[in-house]
């Protein structure tokens, strides 16, 4: 990690530590802890998506499917086969990774719109399967009583405990991803984004790397799904639909595709919007989402993280012309 990243990282850790304390003091927002847990869960997905979209330059409109596969694998293994939650989580990750590999290899040969459509199609197929295979998944009525996660035999009951668990995982994954970005792998991914032909000529195994980052992002989504299953403890296929896939892409785009911090920022903003601040709109939140996405993509293509640098750039230019 370079110095800038380390600084931001420490800042984030401080904020995360202060957050539960601050929130517990004000009754009206004490439920924000619950929202932040969802922010953490979704961040696991969006960090992976950021690597896929912002760094490797690919697109996926079906990531809610991987989230759902992880959630349901954990749910089904724990509820129906009494498997231990951690083992189920690992199994879910392996299974989802395998599915992602099988789908990824042919899909990532496609580019642009076709890749988007293929991932979209895949995502919807998974939703249909989750709805139809009632014996396994409980169908539209859902799967309930998913057990809690345990550490050394003690079930993780409270919100604060889960908050600490989720965000510890997020921070570990964050460090891992930052390390990857600043390595030959990260450079290879970015080279694929900028010019696949030149990357090929430099010996970068472009096809393999695309699949690799796709599978990595799917595994992260699966882990997030398992965490979700053990937190909410009730699963229904409607939570893993196309709209969620689009929202996940939105989080990455709105925050800023080309930066992991952008993914975190976008996830935080959109999760709070969705769970809290848009309640006034009730069902019409999708209208707001559509409008926000449209605005950002047309006016602020580099996302919210670019607002700071852009403003300072404009300010500098203004001063230059004055002097």
């Amino acid at each position, binding site marked *: 990690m370079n110095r800038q990243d380390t600084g931001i990282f420490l800042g984030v850790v401080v904020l995360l530590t202060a957050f539960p304390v601050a929130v517990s003091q004000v009754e009206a927002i004490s439920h924000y802890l619950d929202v932040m847990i969802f922010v953490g869960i979704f961040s696991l997905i969006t960090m992976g998506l950021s690597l896929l979209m912002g760094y490797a330059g690919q697109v996926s409109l079906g990531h809610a499917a991987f989230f759902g596969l992880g959630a349901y694998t954990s749910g089904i293994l724990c509820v129906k086969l009494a498997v231990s939650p951690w083992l189920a989580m690992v199994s879910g990750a392996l299974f989802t990774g395998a599915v992602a590999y099988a789908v990824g290899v042919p899909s990532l040969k496609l*580019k642009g719109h076709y890749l988007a*459509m293929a991932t979209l199609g895949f995502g919807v197929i998974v939703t249909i399967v989750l709805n*139809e295979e009632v014996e396994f998944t409980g169908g539209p009525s859902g799967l309930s009583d998913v057990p809690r996660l345990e550490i050394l035999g003690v079930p993780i009951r409270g919100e604060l405990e889960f908050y600490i668990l989720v965000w510890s995982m997020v921070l570990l994954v964050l460090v891992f991803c930052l390390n990857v970005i600043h390595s030959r792998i990260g450079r290879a991914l970015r080279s694929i984004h900028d010019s696949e032909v030149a990357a090929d000529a430099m010996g970068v195994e472009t096809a393999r790397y695309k699949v690799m980052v796709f599978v990595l992002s799917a595994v992260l989504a699966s882990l997030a799904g398992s965490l979700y299953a053990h937190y909410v403890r009730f699963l229904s296929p409607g939570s893993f639909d196309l709209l969620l896939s689009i929202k996940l892409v939105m989080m990455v785009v709105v925050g800023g595709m080309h930066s992991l911090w952008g993914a975190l920022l976008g996830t935080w903003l959109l999760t709070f919007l969705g769970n809290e601040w848009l309640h006034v709109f009730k069902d019409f939140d*999708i209208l707001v989402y*559509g409008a926000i996405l449209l605005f950002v993509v*047309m006016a602020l293509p580099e996302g919210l993280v670019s607002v700071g640098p852009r403003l300072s750039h404009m300010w500098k230019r203004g001063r230059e012309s004055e002097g």
Partner: protein
Amino acid sequence: MEKLSLGGQLVQYLFTGVTVGSVYGMVALGFNIIYNVTEMINFAQGEFVMLGGLMMVVCAKFLPLPMAFVLTVAIVTAVGVLMERFTINPLKNASVLTLIIVTIAVSILLKGIAMFIWGKDPYVMQPFSGTKPIHLFGAAVQTQILWVLGISAVVVVLLTLFFRKTRYGKAMLACADNLEAARLVGIKVKFMVLLSFALSAAIGAAAGAVITPISLMEYDRGALLGLKGFGAAVLGGLGSFYGAVAAGLILGIVESLCAGLISSGYKDAVGLLVLLLVLFVRPSGLFGSVEASKIKKF
């Protein structure tokens, strides 16, 4: 209801298949028209169908059917034009990813607006010629099916005439063939883009208007319709006019047979599986040329 023989059932499925297939074909045509001029995929294509259906329900309440139909098509065409003017036109040198996200944003915006206006429940509409079925080839066939097939055929014929005989149509074909050359010859590509969106919206609206009496219509039908229509477009060879129509029919029939004979819950998955298979195995589609698809930016 009289019990149908297997033959009668098959005929029933075939009719259903050809009916939905016509809609898929229309959606596929819409994708192709925009793709041919802009090389982009309009993710909001399905929403035009949805808007056509819901708008028709409203218009038919206080206008005679033909006028309601024309008004519906006109309004949805206007939506397509607005979409192009406000979101596509300003993004001249945008990356592929940006264009994808923009049309997705528009599709959820349209969905949200539809939900705002019409709510979440499905809307019913009376078939154009009444509810009494006619008997053909051993099956009871709703008259609306004939309307769907008829209007689809009219659309195909009109489009063919448009592309072959009119100046604008031929200009659009030129764009599809070679955009740079078309520009050099003086064809106003920007207007062609606008026209392509208008046409696609109109076709989608017509399809939506005519299918609603059979399969109802609700605010979130667009995504699945769009996906399946895209599947038909790719199956027929992206950019191919007749390929789209043929592939749409094939897709509709396959889906209907699978739903009837195997499992109706997985009906929607059929079209999506076809989409994935085509993209993975033969992206040039059934009727597209393999050489041309190598040059296409897959």
